[in-house]
């Protein structure tokens, strides 16, 4: 009875990555390296140690994270603001929503040439690109989160004299929060994608630049380190959001468990 089934455990999610790692190790031993196709695990490890020691790794992670967060902050705040505005006000919605939907249909990476021409390859370009990309998920989810709040609760609040600031603080915002966090999660996913592209094309630093630079010199180990780094950073940021969801929206888990 005390033998817990492995399929029920959280660890089961790590099964495939571990198998992939093992296959990679076996392949490394069998091919004895030197193929130029894929570096072996020890090669990647020593590459990792090399850039860790000379400080470029930490430096690049720092700059990439900083860029990502800066763009996310702008895009997220504007998305949140407009989502709340259009979610609450019919007038604002009629005025703005159509335009926002039109812009949404332009792939954000397609805006890159225009932004490059306008702002060059400086920091603004990357911030703007990330802001545009991260704006939409937060905007859309905030908007629908607010629209989907139970009208009966709003009616109750009105009858009990909860209005203006209190209505937003205690009813509308908490009601929309789970949806806003879903938007944040999607935005962070996009943030990393845009960051890579932006840094590979228009940058002299960051993880994207590190990978592009490594490609120029055929440093396969560094390329793989960079890719693994993206996977890890993505997982970490996902984990942060899940933690936030559990902390801020505990009531929602209760509701789900009940239904």
């Amino acid at each position, binding site marked *: 009875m005390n033998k817990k089934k492995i399929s029920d455990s959280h660890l089961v999610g790590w099964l495939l990555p571990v198998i992939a790692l093992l296959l990679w190790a076996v392949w490394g031993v069998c091919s004895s390296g030197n193929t130029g196709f894929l570096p072996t695990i020890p090669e990647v490890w020593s590459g990792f140690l090399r850039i860790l020691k000379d400080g470029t790794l930490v430096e690049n992670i720092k700059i990439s994270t900083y860029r990502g967060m800066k763009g996310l902050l702008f895009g997220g705040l504007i998305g949140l603001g407009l989502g709340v505005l259009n979610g609450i006000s019919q007038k604002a919605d009629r005025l703005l929503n159509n335009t926002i939907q039109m812009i949404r249909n332009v792939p954000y990476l397609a805006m890159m040439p225009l932004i490059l021409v306008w702002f060059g390859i400086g920091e603004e370009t990357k911030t703007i690109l990330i802001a545009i990309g991260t704006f939409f998920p937060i905007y859309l989810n905030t908007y629908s989160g607010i629209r989907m709040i139970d009208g*009966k*609760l709003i*009616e*109750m609040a*009105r*009858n*009990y*004299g*909860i209005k203006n600031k*209190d209505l937003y603080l*205690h*009813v509308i915002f*908490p*009601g929309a*929060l789970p949806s806003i966090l879903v938007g944040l999660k999607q935005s962070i996913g996009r943030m990393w994608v845009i960051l890579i592209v932006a840094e590979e094309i228009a940058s002299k630093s960051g993880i994207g630049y590190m990978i592009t630079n490594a490609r120029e010199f055929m440093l396969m180990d560094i390329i793989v380190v960079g890719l693994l780094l993206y996977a890890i950073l993505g997982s970490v940021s996902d984990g942060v959001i899940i933690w936030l969801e559990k902390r801020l*929206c*505990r*009531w*929602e888990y*209760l*509701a789900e468990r*009940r239904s």
Partner: protein
Amino acid sequence: MSGGYAIQIQNVEKKFGEHVVLQNVNLDIKPGEFIAIVGKSGCGKSTLLRLITDLEESDSGSIRVMDGERETKKEGVKFLFQEARLLPWKKVWKNIALVSPDQSREAAVKALHAVGLEDKADAWPETLSGGQKQRVSLARALSSDPKVLLLDEPLGALDALTRIEMQILIEELWRENGLTVILVTHDVGEAVYLADRVVLIEEGGITMDERITLGRPRERDSDFAYFEDRILNRVLGRDSVPEKKIEFMI
């Protein structure tokens, strides 16, 4: 706590599009009175209740809330809905504190004590049963310092035993607080059990206004059955209203 407000409803009419829901409704409710409004579904009884607060606006006529001789705002008129309508993202005591004048935990716990749920102060609303939720909702209504309490079939979704418990609780709280209470229900027995007066609404107008002259707390005896039958027959459109003199009742 001061006594309840009076309500004066005069010539009220309400239409939804072309459909007339209420017309020529007149009703005088005294301070501290417990009135039950009964009627078939769709007769307009819930609409009348919503008109008394500002959840709906009447097309003509007036509804005045009176504090003694003075007309007053409708802020003291609080609604208890059929669903508990608790904010699921706030713990039980915070749901109550949000609407109480001093917003304190003590006041919330006191209100919970009145409905017998003081041990649920830190529970999430979703973990409560339907009856418990409705009791929290009642505690919330009471701690918002109401002068008039409007109950829109608040017990409709509860099981029979919980209903009886809630009816007893509502009567107790009404007697302690001296509020004016208007209860909309389709359950004639519930109306006779709780109310001083039972008003029947049919096709948008008041067609019966019966004073229930039974003592309190009420027993479900033959006198009780007399009133229940009388009103029920009227609701169902049956002629056989039993003739019995009111003097026996008291």
